[in-house]
């Protein structure tokens, strides 16, 4: 007797488990029961498990009978003519979906020529073992898995053509690549899901060589001429959204150019781009501090006195202002209403991003790098035929990472662009490297992809032959202009009087506990003190009771709240954070006293 479980619940027993399972599978293939159901016979536990719950991961496989796939040429012809669809194949029992448990009972052939009578299933295509992004990596069966997975991850961060209706959308933080191109070397998946309609990279000429050390440690060298011709150019969009809120008591926000008597009024020049309705006009070039949407809000705390006095004067300024370090052009203005019926103003900002030193680029093989230098085209190395590379990639990136697919794509791209065709780089099913080399040779180039290259500055011929070809490169969304940050002085926190944290708040860079230790280890005691001076304060201390005394700036007098003014009071320099902890001690009921003594 074998126990049968449905979705892990015991439902009964069967005598012949193998036959039972075969029967269920058979009727599923005939369409008598749902194809959503999977069945598995666990020989070790002697249990049959049926599962039709949601959330299982399943994958389609071609059914094999007696070593022959049920899917025939006829099916494929019918599919091509459009007489049947993929769904029909599932319904006819040609393709079935198998989950993790049923997979335990099947034997899947990787390719059709591997088939033996024991096999029960056949992969639809070898590439189907990979996910969407990973299958976009050409020749990925030639590279280590870790690199393929990095290449897959990098593609998700690539800039491209993310949607066709972008002019009427208000998305947060999006980028759009200018003139994206279809890759010369592509995989079958590129065609299957219409990559040519929304590509996310550009085909460029890549030379594998060093360039005066500017491409060490994964950096890349970019050709200024290529950038001027539009390589890697993108637009960054960011919306500014302001809503006219309604408050209790009939008060509302007001989108307008704020009056001069509004609390927190900036300056007239800050409002210079606003039209009469308080909203900026399209194509205005704004910089940090400029107001994009003007708004005033009612006073925060309403008291009876305020209500009858100068009501207009108590309104607050609450405009949308360009943040620190931001700039852009007003792209699109939209005035509408939200669900609550409040006036809603959305303004989209556009900023053109031209590649600059520090922007991140990658090929499709996990070979990412940032621009180390941008070289004028006349200084770039050139080949005998006068080609200058758009990008110089460091050869040191190859041996330790073993991304052979990167090298094959370079040759493939070269063949493709010279013969004016696309090259198939589908994983496991690609054009062979040998064929590509032969074709390159027949096109009049050295079959290994190298060429004689001359120094762009001196015109001398390089001793080494340089590996040069075409590749598909992607611009990634990490751009320096979003990250560059420095501070000399700036805002501080209200509570601790220490500098704020983070780029958005123009913050400082923390010198933490371990960094502090390095100063101490060097014995740089006074330098360390200076580092931590960011919140220093001078505090008067009463020498009588040891608490913090009071300094009256008008009378220029010091007195102690406990001992009066007839007591010795000394100014001491401490960090404000320490003054704060003394206050916290007091709140705990601990009385901290500072006993002063001359140090030397």
């Amino acid at each position, binding site marked *: 007797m074998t126990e049968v479980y449905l979705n892990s619940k015991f439902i009964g027993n069967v005598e012949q488990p193998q036959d039972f399972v075969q029967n269920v599978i058979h009727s599923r293939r005939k369409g008598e029961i749902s194809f959503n159901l999977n069945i598995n016979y666990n020989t070790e536990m002697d249990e049959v498990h049926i599962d039709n719950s949601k959330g299982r991961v399943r994958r389609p496989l071609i059914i094999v009978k007696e070593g022959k796939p049920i899917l025939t040429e006829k099916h494929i012809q019918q599919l091509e003519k459009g007489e049947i669809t993929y769904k029909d194949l599932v319904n006819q029992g040609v393709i079935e979906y198998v989950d993790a448990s049923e997979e335990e009972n099947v034997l899947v052939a990787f390719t059709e020529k591997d088939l033996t009578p024991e096999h029960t299933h056949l992969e639809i295509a070898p590439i189907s073992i990979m996910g969407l992004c990973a299958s976009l990596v050409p020749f990925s069966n030639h590279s280590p898995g870790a690199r393929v997975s990095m290449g897959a991850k990098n593609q998700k961060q690539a800039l491209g053509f993310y949607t066709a209706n972008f002019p009427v959308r208000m998305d947060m933080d999006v980028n759009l690549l200018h003139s994206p191109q279809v890759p010369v070397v592509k995989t079958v998946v590129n065609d299957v899901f219409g990559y040519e309609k929304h590509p996310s990279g550009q085909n460029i000429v890549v030379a594998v060589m060093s360039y005066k050390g500017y491409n060490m440690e994964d950096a890349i060298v970019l050709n200024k001429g290529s950038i001027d011709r539009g390589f890697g150019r993108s637009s960054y969009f960011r919306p500014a959204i302001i809503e006219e809120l309604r408050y209790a008591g009939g008060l509302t926000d007001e989108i307008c150019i704020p009056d001069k008597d509004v609390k927190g009024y900036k300056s007239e020049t800050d409002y210079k781009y606003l039209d009469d309705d308080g909203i900026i006009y399209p194509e205005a070039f704004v910089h940090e501090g400029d107001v994009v949407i003007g708004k005033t809000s009612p006073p925060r705390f309403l008291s009876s006195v305020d209500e009858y006095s100068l009501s207009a004067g108590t309104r607050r300024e609450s405009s949308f202002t360009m943040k620190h370090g931001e700039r852009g052009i007003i792209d699109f203005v939209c005035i509408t209403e939200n669900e609550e019926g409040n006036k809603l103003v959305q303004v989209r900002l556009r900023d053109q991003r031209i590649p600059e030193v520090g922007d991140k680029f990658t090929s499709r093989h996990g070979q990412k790098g940032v621009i180390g230098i941008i070289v004028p085209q006349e200084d770039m190395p050139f080949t005998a035929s006068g080609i200058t590379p758009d990008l110089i990639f460091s050869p040191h990136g190859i041996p330790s990472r073993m991304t052979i697919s990167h090298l094959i794509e370079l040759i493939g791209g070269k063949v493709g662009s010279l013969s004016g065709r696309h090259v198939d780089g589908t994983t496991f099913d690609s054009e062979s490297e040998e064929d590509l080399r032969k074709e390159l040779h027949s096109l009049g180039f050295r079959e290994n992809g190298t060429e004689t290259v001359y120094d762009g500055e001196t015109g001398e011929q390089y001793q080494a032959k340089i590996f040069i070809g075409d590749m598909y490169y992607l611009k990634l969304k990490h751009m320096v202009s979003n990250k560059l940050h420095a501070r000399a002085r700036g805002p501080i926190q209200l509570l601790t009087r220490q500098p704020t944290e983070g780029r958005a708040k123009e913050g400082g860079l923390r010198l933490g506990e371990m960094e*502090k*230790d*390095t100063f*101490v*280890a*060097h*014995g*740089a*005691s*006074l*330098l*360390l*003190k200076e580092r*931590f*001076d960011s*919140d*220093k304060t001078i505090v008067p201390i009463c020498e009588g009771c040891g608490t913090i005394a009071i300094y009256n700036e008008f009378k220029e007098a010091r007195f102690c709240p406990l001992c009066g003014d007839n007591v010795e009071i000394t100014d001491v*320099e*401490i*960090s404000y*954070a*320490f003054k704060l*902890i003394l206050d916290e*001690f007091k709140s*705990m*009921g*601990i*009385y901290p006293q500072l*006993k002063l003594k001359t*140090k*030397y």
Partner: protein
Amino acid sequence: MHDELFKEYEGKLNPKIIEDIKSNMPEKITKTQLKQVMDLVVEEYKKVRVQAGESVGLISAESIGEPGTQMTLNTFHYAGVAEMNVTTGLPRVIEILDGRKSISTPMMEIYLQKPYSTGKDIKRIALSVKETKVKDILSELNINVVDLNIELRINGDKLKELGINRATVLKVLNKEPKTAVRQSTVDKDLFTIRSTTKDINLNEIYKLREKIKNIFVQGIKGITHVLPVKRGPEFIIMTAGSNLSKVLDLEFVDATRTISNDLFEVAGVLGIEAARQSIINELFKVVDMQGLNIDKRHVMLVADMMCYSEAPQGITRYGVISEKSSILARASFETPIKYLIEAALVGEKDKLRSVVENVMLNQAVPVGTGLPGLAVRMAEKTVKEN
């Protein structure tokens, strides 16, 4: 020879260095030559000493901490003995530095006296150290439900292997109170154990049987596994489990070299200085095994910190940290409120003599450039003028 010259340098040089010089100097060295050598050594010795104001503790912490990030978390298994594994890597370092009272894999290295250290009777010696209970030597232990007694059959081969004779077994079994043991005259391996308690029921017999299983036969308590190993030219016994005081009493053991990896046991049996050395050795076992490179002096400093009182102290809030003089330094480590309240209750004073509290106050830390002060002697005239 030249003893009076060496005596002169006793205060200036480490005794070990003087010893080294003594033993390495050629016989016919003259007094002036030796003096030149000694002066040179003193000069070199002064050069390599740590400067005043060097923050040795922090440098030690960084020098141990940085390689510590590269340690792996593997435990090491002894080939052949499945149950015998040793905690190494970061867990072992943490265990040592925390001063844990009970460590996860206590072990001993038993060195042997002359005839045995060459491998004579090594297996028997090793097994005689191992804690053996009745359950380790029996082949059958049945309850006779009819007669309400227990039949115990000894595994004769095991006895031979362990070097135990049947008389010992009988003696051990006889020690169990309220029982009478009879050895079968026909089958020497069969013992019948009968309870002398009247009206005994089956349940109590079961309990008795469990008790008999755990009767101690021979060996040393706490030592669960033994493994004879050839270390260099001689044989030693590695053990899992540790009982230093009992093992040192055995006459075939070389008590001068036998050691346990349990710090507290070492401190208890051999004293705090031995524990200090044990900390250094145990830490270096890990460091060497991981292929790291740490200067011994850093580890010695840590060991000194842990062993300046009668028992080893861990670097935890209960150990070394709790003895810091500064309230603020203690409070900045762990459980600040506890330390602050304790300090407030007795009106403790913080003299601000160490690093952490001075960083908190934003004062120069008394280390390196923050240590020296500048004193100016005012000429008497100028003082009068003011």
